[in-house]
């Protein structure tokens, strides 16, 4: 039997997620107990954690895009070989990057700490991915639904922003700190925007399939929201660098654009008013449940993002754990939950596996444990961040004094990280079992 490459990406992604969250939890404990796990210093654990979870986001999104374009979009993949090559480049580069981290070989920058040379295979595989996507998508007869636009945008802009993130290789950028930091966060902020395009596109795709309502992906509103998101990707990144002394207009444009996200917030509330009964009715369908949860997280994180985009609030929250709450809320609460929905959809679709009643019970329990601990985790970060901000700016305490004060909150934070990990294992293990059976061709027991 020919195996789907999409599912290979997704299962490797799930493994990366579990290991990545494990490293993250260990790192959190190093924060509060300095002597914990001296063997792997935080300087290694942090990039291990970040790169693995970012790998998860990309693997699961890419796997979905390959499978969905090939199966559901009224197109066929231009090349079926490229996904396989892509997979192996990803795997080999990934392992090399992890080895570098374990050996303490860095040289890159925050979030891409590996030596710059390892970005070359990433560039190559992305170009192959892009060529394959566009060659396939342009064969489609009729209008692209919004999710195909979003995937196209995500693919192009990841390439652009990833290139920008290596401009530091040129002395013109590297030797002026203000330029260096501005460009780094321009690229970083927009890069997150571009993977969000891949992920949100996937969410809309999954909802369209489940409800069998193509209108969701063709409506004027869907496109307006997409363009609004796109404008924010392009111009709304400067809240990361409000305190970096770049030209004022750099920051003001971002402030203004960020506030347009209020419209997105409004749209979410409006939708809930109309679709609550649908959501209730379909809550038993696993992917729907995850999408509904991600909606709640979008709401919470967007509200937070809007607040910290106001310079007068940002001056307190910047450089504190509020920023981490923003990052974790978006990557775990939104991206991961949407991608888990997509993984459920894809795995059931490919393997034709039906989860047993007891498996479904475990997944449901995992779902609640995951979300509840994530909420505690998120609130702890916000609380710690606000306290730190006030202690730095109003009380002018020293670093050591501040760390001592916020330590109790960070202890709760570290333990809730473990809770997230446990919930995740409960959600993921049935999925991994199903893919294992499929990939290694065992008879699937009903």
């Amino acid at each position: 039997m020919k195996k789907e490459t999409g599912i290979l990406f997704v299962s490797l992604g799930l493994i990366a997620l579990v290991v990545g969250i494990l490293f993250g939890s260990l790192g959190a404990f190093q924060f509060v107990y300095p002597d914990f796990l001296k063997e792997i210093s935080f300087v290694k654990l942090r990039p291990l954690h970040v790169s693995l979870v970012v790998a998860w986001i990309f693997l699961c999104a890419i796997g979905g895009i390959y499978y969905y374009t090939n199966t559901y979009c009224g197109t066929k993949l231009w090349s079926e070989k490229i996904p396989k090559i892509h997979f192996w480049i990803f795997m080999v580069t990934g392992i090399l990057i992890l080895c570098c981290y374990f050996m303490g070989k860095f040289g890159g920058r925050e979030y891409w700490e590996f030596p710059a040379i390892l970005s070359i295979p990433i560039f190559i595989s992305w170009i192959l991915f892009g060529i394959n996507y566009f060659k396939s998508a342009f064969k489609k007869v009729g209008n692209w639904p919004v999710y195909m636009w979003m995937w196209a945008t995500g693919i192009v802009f990841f390439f652009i922003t990833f290139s920008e993130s290596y401009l530091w290789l040129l002395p013109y950028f590297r030797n002026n700190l203000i330029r260096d930091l501005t460009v780094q966060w321009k690229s970083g902020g927009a890069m997150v925007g571009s993977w969000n395009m891949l992920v949100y596109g996937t969410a809309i795709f999954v909802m369209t399939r489940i409800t069998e309502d193509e209108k969701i992906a063709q409506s004027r509103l869907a496109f307006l929201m997409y363009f609004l998101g796109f404008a924010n990707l392009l111009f709304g990144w400067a809240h990361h660098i409000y305190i970096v002394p770049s030209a004022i207009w750099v920051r003001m444009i971002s402030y203004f654009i960020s506030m347009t996200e209020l419209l997105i917030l409004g749209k979410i509330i409006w939708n809930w008013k109309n679709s609550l009964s649908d959501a209730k009715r379909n809550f038993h369908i696993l992917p729907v449940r995850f999408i509904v949860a991600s909606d709640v997280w979008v709401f919470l994180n967007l509200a937070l993002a809007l607040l910290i985009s106001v310079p007068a609030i940002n001056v307190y929250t910047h450089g504190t754990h509020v920023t981490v709450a923003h990052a974790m809320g978006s990557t775990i609460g939104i991206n991961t939950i949407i991608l888990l929905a997509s993984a459920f959809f894809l795995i059931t679709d490919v393997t034709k596996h039906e989860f047993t009643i007891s498996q479904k019970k475990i997944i449901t329990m995992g779902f609640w444990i995951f979300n509840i601990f994530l909420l505690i985790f998120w609130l702890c970060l916000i609380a710690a961040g606000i306290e730190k901000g006030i202690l730095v700016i109003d009380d002018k305490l020293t670093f050591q004094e501040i760390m001592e004060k916020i330590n109790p909150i960070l202890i709760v934070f570290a333990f809730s990280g473990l809770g997230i990990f446990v919930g995740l294992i409960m959600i993921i293990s049935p999925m991994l079992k199903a893919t294992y059976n499929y990939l290694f061709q065992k008879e699937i027991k009903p």
Partner: protein
Amino acid sequence: MSTQTRRFIFWFLIALFFIHTSLVFTIGTDEDNGKELMTEDAQAGKLLYQKYNCTACHQLYGLGGYMGPDLTNMVSSPGKGEMYARAFLQAGTQRMPNFNLLEDEIKSLVAYLKYVDKTGTSPVKKFEINFDGTITQK
């Protein structure tokens, strides 16, 4: 919304992006108050800062990990300074690893931190809040 409108908005945004980007790369980030301190030593220090992944724990302008303090204005903070920084770099602490740095590397890292210090202020502690939610640094 017709496909034509969709394409138009898309390309319009892309055009704005390229204009905006070229301005950000040039006049948007031209100011560099510490320029004369970005000596060859300091330039090497910047790369060492990346090589040893100091960012995992330290911030410049609030950007980076939070295990250690923000280093932007460390060298000019009261009671701290070059010798103080050297002590940390030579020995590490309970939380900060000892990187076994060579004397040259320490010199470069310190030179880089001296440059960073001159470029601006972080965290911003003295400011006024304006009616539109922006702030003015004092």
